[in-house]
């Protein structure tokens, strides 16, 4: 009887540890919905565009969201604006230089002010933002929504969980050596960024 109790407790402990283990969420979206939106003020009209080439992984533990780490990658080539001339300029070596700097990345290192309400966690995520060959430490307010068992609703025949990440923040292009001190009358130095992405963790 005593042995059975010990085994039961050991199994329960193991199960709880396994449940508490962080999950790895892959942000390469097969449905192509993930996007990052950017907006820059300009005299005639603001320049609005988006990027769909998003990938990366995030380690998230719903029992301990404060331990979240991960890296999100945006392909510069996937940045699109509706005006073809602006699109060409944006990718050229005059601006983002997509050939030389093909990726924009954010690597999350630590979380602060973590608040969880149900399946929603908000936090200030500190990490390294890399753009145009320049890496800079940033703290970004992020909202995590953990959707347990919802992967199958999105991708049939797959079981697992989803993690939705939303973030809105502003960067200054001059901090990343993008035409520093130039064209400020034509293109605002500040860029509004808005990220809305979903990652999948397939059940083993």
């Amino acid at each position, binding site marked *: 009887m005593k042995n059975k109790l010990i085994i039961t407790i050991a199994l329960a402990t193991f199960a709880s540890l396994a449940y508490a283990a962080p999950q790895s969420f892959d942000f390469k979206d097969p*449905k192509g919905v993930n996007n990052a939106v950017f907006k820059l003020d300009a005299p005639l009209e603001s320049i609005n565009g988006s990027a769909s080439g998003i990938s990366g992984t995030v380690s998230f533990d719903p029992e301990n969201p404060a331990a979240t780490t991960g890296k999100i990658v945006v392909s510069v080539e996937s940045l699109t604006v509706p*005006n073809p001339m602006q699109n060409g300029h944006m990718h050229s070596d005059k601006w983002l230089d997509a050939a030389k700097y093909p990726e924009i990345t954010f690597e999350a290192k630590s979380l602060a002010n973590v608040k969880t309400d149900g399946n929603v966690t908000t936090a200030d995520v500190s990490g390294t933002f890399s753009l145009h060959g320049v890496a800079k430490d940033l703290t970004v307010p992020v909202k995590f929504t953990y959707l347990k068992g919802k992967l199958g*609703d999105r991708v049939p025949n797959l079981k697992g969980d989803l993690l939705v990440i939303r973030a809105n923040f502003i960067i200054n292009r001059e901090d990343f050596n993008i035409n520093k001190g130039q064209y400020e009358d034509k293109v605002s130095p500040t860029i509004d960024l808005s990220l809305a992405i*979903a990652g999948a963790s397939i059940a083993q």
Partner: protein
Amino acid sequence: MKRTLQLLAVLVVLVAGTTWLATGANRGWTKTSVAVKTLDPVTGIDGITYQKKFQPGVDFLAAAALGTGLLAGVSLFFRNQKQTTNDK
């Protein structure tokens, strides 16, 4: 020739103006695609795709105005056709 160039100038500005008005009178830059948002019901994320659509802007109007000006300007280098009278 002078009259032909002047008519062509008027035609260019009329076609450009009508096209600009008919496609929504976009007061921004010319666009060759428009963003279309599609809500993903599971995640609540608005997916963005681009559909090809020509939407002329003020640069299109400016180019048409320039073309009209050039045609009208060139027409000034041609003389008016002489009126031939047969007074006998």
